[in-house]
């Protein structure tokens, strides 16, 4: 073979040279990254910057799940989509953008909504899952699926001028249900569509999600597991707080949990959260 032992070609050495010279990342970190696969669920406000940084940094296989099309009112925050893609599937738009900045990685398009019927199959193909979605039932579904498959989950959320970030189900850390065993009342779950969001706030959280997933993929540093980052953009404050560990009573990951793949397939997340998995886009007539 003409490949050196670490699997880096001269072109890769050139492209990733600023990573390779980092003592705490280096050739091993980059080689790990190139061998890794990451799935981003949602090519919206959080997914946009995360996908671009995954592609740029050399994640070997990058999957994108989304069933939406690009709309003009996404453009203020979903910086991966160009105007030319308005009306076209977000997955196609995002995949084209990722390929345009790094043609040497593999980008996989999953142009469909994530459901209990396809989640196990899709998620099982990736090492790390990034939750960049926008509703409560999907967040429970992704977390449960990561628990039954044993995958780490990098979870971000943004609304208004606030953002939140943590890593679930990593190294015996808590899962989403450990923190939120009971779903919140539906009225407490605003989406960006009805609540609004300052575009750069999911930008910051999406970049931080990329950082955490890259750390896990490259096996460097301390991922944000058992800790949660809280961003208040308006006052310019960020706090990183200590959260509970895995709950022994957790229905998904606890000591006596019986949550199997079959249980997952049959679980009704819409009923559980009293919220539909896919919210139809709202028409706003506020002005």
């Amino acid at each position: 073979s003409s490949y050196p032992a670490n699997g880096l070609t001269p072109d890769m050495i050139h492209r990733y040279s600023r990573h390779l010279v980092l003592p705490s990342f280096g050739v091993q970190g980059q080689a790990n990254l190139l061998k890794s696969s990451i799935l981003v669920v949602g090519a919206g406000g959080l997914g946009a910057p995360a996908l671009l940084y995954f592609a740029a940094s050399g994640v070997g296989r990058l999957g994108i799940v989304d069933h939406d099309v690009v709309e003009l009112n996404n453009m203020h925050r979903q910086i991966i989509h160009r105007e030319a893609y308005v009306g076209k599937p977000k997955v196609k738009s995002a995949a084209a953008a990722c390929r345009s900045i790094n043609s040497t990685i593999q980008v996989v398009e999953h142009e469909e909504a994530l459901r209990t019927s396809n989640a196990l199959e899709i998620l099982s193909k990736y090492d790390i899952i990034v939750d960049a979605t926008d509703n409560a039932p999907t967040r429970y579904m992704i977390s449960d699926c990561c628990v039954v498959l044993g995958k780490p989950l990098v979870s971000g959320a943004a609304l208004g001028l606030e953002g939140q970030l943590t890593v679930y189900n990593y190294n015996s850390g808590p899962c989403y249900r450990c923190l939120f065993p009971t779903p919140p009342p539906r009225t407490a779950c605003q989406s960006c569509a009805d609540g609004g969001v300052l575009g750069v706030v999911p930008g910051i959280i999406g970049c931080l999600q990329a950082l955490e997933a890259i750390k896990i993929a490259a096996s460097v540093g301390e991922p944000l597991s058992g800790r949660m980052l809280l961003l208040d953009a308006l006052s310019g404050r960020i706090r990183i707080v200590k959260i509970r560990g895995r709950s022994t009573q957790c229905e998904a990951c606890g000591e006596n949990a019986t949550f199997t793949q079959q249980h997952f397939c049959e679980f009704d997340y819409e009923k559980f959260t009293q919220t539909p998995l896919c919210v139809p886009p709202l028409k706003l007539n506020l002005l």
Partner: protein
Amino acid sequence: MQNPQGFGVSEETLLKMQLTLEFGGGLELLCDSKKIHNVNVEQQNGEDKLTMKDLLSWVRTNLIKERPEMFMKGDTVRPGVLVLVNDCDWELSGQLNTLLEEKDVVVFISTLHGG
């Protein structure tokens, strides 16, 4: 933060404690859209200590101006609200039984789902 002077309570004086309360993730909308509240909480039931259970009932009476069901359910916070005492999940300090100390910072934050 520990400050022994804060506990100098005789039978004649009411326990009073200076706390910083913060609301986020939309919960600030329930208290005049103000996120940070520097408050003096007075213990009402003659006890010489203040627990999170006491504080919750004080908050509900004194700060929550509307839709209290969006803040509490039963005698605790509603599902989807994280409670942090000095940047630490209250599950790690005993939840409702967490003992508060002078100058503690208590954060109530609703989990977000948007993206």
